[in-house]
């Protein structure tokens, strides 16, 4: 699959509404993310972050517009476009009855890798993420931090061009967070585009170069973090977030 497109993600006039809901969540939404970028998507609860990522990864189907990943249209019956990206959902997305190795064997195969590649990547990832000692143990008994690392390992087993990360460090200790963020920065150095979403804005400041704020289904601000802070005269991302989205509760 050719991946010469300079844009990792190109969204054009995206329209979407949930079945049974008369109101459109997205109307003619446009978004571009450059290849190799560390992109953060932030917004209050219900703003549309998870829905947007679900549309980009093909979990949901759009009602209009186009979504392209590295120039390839999403939403077609061609599954090969799914090889281009990895997804690390907020929920633990693996089989807890199995060991890390068994999970990586299975998800590696489903990601299109052959037996040798799976073995090589499994050994590499378990080493990098500090899971070698528990490689053959059932995940059920793992701590939250260990499960987060397994969740991440599965998402990158096939060395994707674009990596979607939904709250990848929620509920983990400082050491695990540090290890995960460092690994993500290392992946980015090697050329992986990171699409990150989280409510942990201090963590995002260290990880993201480009930031987009979404509210009520609309992109209300998008630029580099430094430019946005300068433009809105704020000293950190959290203040910027509250300034643009307000302080009232969101349901």
């Amino acid at each position, binding site marked *: 699959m050719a991946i010469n497109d300079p844009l990792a993600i190109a969204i054009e006039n995206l329209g979407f509404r949930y079945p049974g809901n008369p109101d459109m969540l997205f109307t003619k939404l446009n978004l571009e993310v450059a290849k190799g970028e560390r992109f953060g998507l932030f917004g209050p609860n219900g703003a549309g972050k998870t829905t947007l990522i679900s549309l980009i990864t093909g979990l949901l189907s759009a009602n209009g517009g186009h979504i392209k990943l590295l120039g390839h249209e999403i939403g077609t019956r061609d599954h090969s476009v799914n090889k281009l990206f990895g*997804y690390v959902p907020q929920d633990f997305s693996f089989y807890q009855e199995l060991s890390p190795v068994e999970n990586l064997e*299975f998800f590696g195969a*489903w990601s*299109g890798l052959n037996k040798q590649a799976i073995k090589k990547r499994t050994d590499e990832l378990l080493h990098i993420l500090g899971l070698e000692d528990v490689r053959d143990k*059932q995940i059920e008994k793992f701590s939250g931090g260990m499960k987060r690392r397994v969740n991440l390992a599965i998402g990158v087993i096939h060395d994707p061009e674009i990596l979607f990360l939904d709250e990848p460090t929620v509920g983990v200790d400082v050491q695990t967070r540090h290890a995960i963020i460092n690994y993500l920065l290392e992946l980015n150095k090697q050329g992986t585009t990171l699409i990150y979403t989280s409510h942990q804005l201090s963590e995002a400041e260290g990880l993201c170069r480009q930031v987009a704020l979404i509210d009520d289904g609309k992109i209300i601000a998008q630029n580099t973090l430094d430019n946005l802070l300068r433009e809105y005269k704020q000293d950190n991302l959290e203040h910027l977030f509250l300034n643009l989205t307000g302080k009232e509760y969101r349901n």
Partner: protein
Amino acid sequence: MFKLGATILKDIRILLRDKVGLSLMFLMPVLLVIVVTNIQNSTFQLVSKNKLSILICNRDTGQASKQLIAAIGKIGMFKVSQIDGGQNGKQIADAMHQQDAVLGVIIPANFSSKVTAKSKSIAGKALTSFGLQGDTLKKAGDIDPLTLYYNPVLQESLRLSVGGAVRSALQLVESRETLRSLYFSINEKPMPQKLEDEMLNNKTTINEVPVSKDGTRITPNATQHNVPAWTIFAMFFVIMSLGGSVVREKISGSFIRLKTLPTSYLVAILSKQIVYLGVTILQAAVIFSIGVWLFPFMNLPALNLPSDMLALVVITVVCGWCAVSYAILVAVFSKTQEQVNGFGAISIVILSAIGGLMVPSFAMQGFFRNAANLSPMHWCLDAYYTLFLEGGKLKDIVNNIIPLFIITLLFQFVIILGLKRKNLI
């Protein structure tokens, strides 16, 4: 193929670690087969080998009642006990409960004298009709009816056959008296015993031949009936494990990741079908093996396997595939594990009831007789009985395999529709 192989391996690993699911699929059906066969074997023996206990309250003092009691004893299906002739109906019922007798008969007072009087009257009429001088003046009154008490647990069919047997004993006594009267009226001396025996004893024997396809004589017993029937039930009961597995995967986070990967979810469905088809075949093998090798040690009749093993394998595979397809069908349309377990278990019991696993479908009437054709279990059970009880071959069960196959394909079609509708493929 590599993706399918990896998925099959994953499903086998998860299955082997699901101890509850495994015991539901193997231990429970084995227990079910053993318990049901044991209970039915006792009933079978009660009916076929043990004699039915009958209490006779004889209020008569003559010979005819004694002959009647002897005739009932000679039938061979009763263990006759006599109680005091002075007892009333309530006392007889109490005595039946105390002595575990399922039947009681009251022979009325003056039974013998009325039988004799009626016989003489009939003999007189017969002689007159032959043109001989007969004693037609004597008018005989009707014989007072015998009273038959029975335990309500006795099945209708068994009660009818008991009634028939007692009636035939009664007929024998009456016929003997009539013959004796006739002979005495003509010859003025008692009828010789030898002649009486020749005239009354039925000389025509009845050969009983079980109708089997291959000419073998497999005696139907609790094992031959129950093992195939409950094996089918066990195969369909995989819904508890397989349905739960599909729904668990659907509502777990792993499913979201699967949907983002460059592989169709059909691979996961195909893998589950292959793994659980193996489970159903293994279930059948385990239950049949227990029937063949373990039942004799449990004082149960051993299971006789059909002579056509290929036919047994074919119908087992098709039945297993149908069971697996049904489980996946229910799981695709269920949103929670509670839904699949609740609906799955109840629907399997209903399908087995209308399919003839609990009551033979030939005994059903009207709507339910036609509804049996809609249950895949009916076609499978019919095929198993053709093989296990009638000694049938593959060609004899083709008419069962085809509808079962069509039902399975229908299930598969609806599974695909469901997956498409839910945007899973």
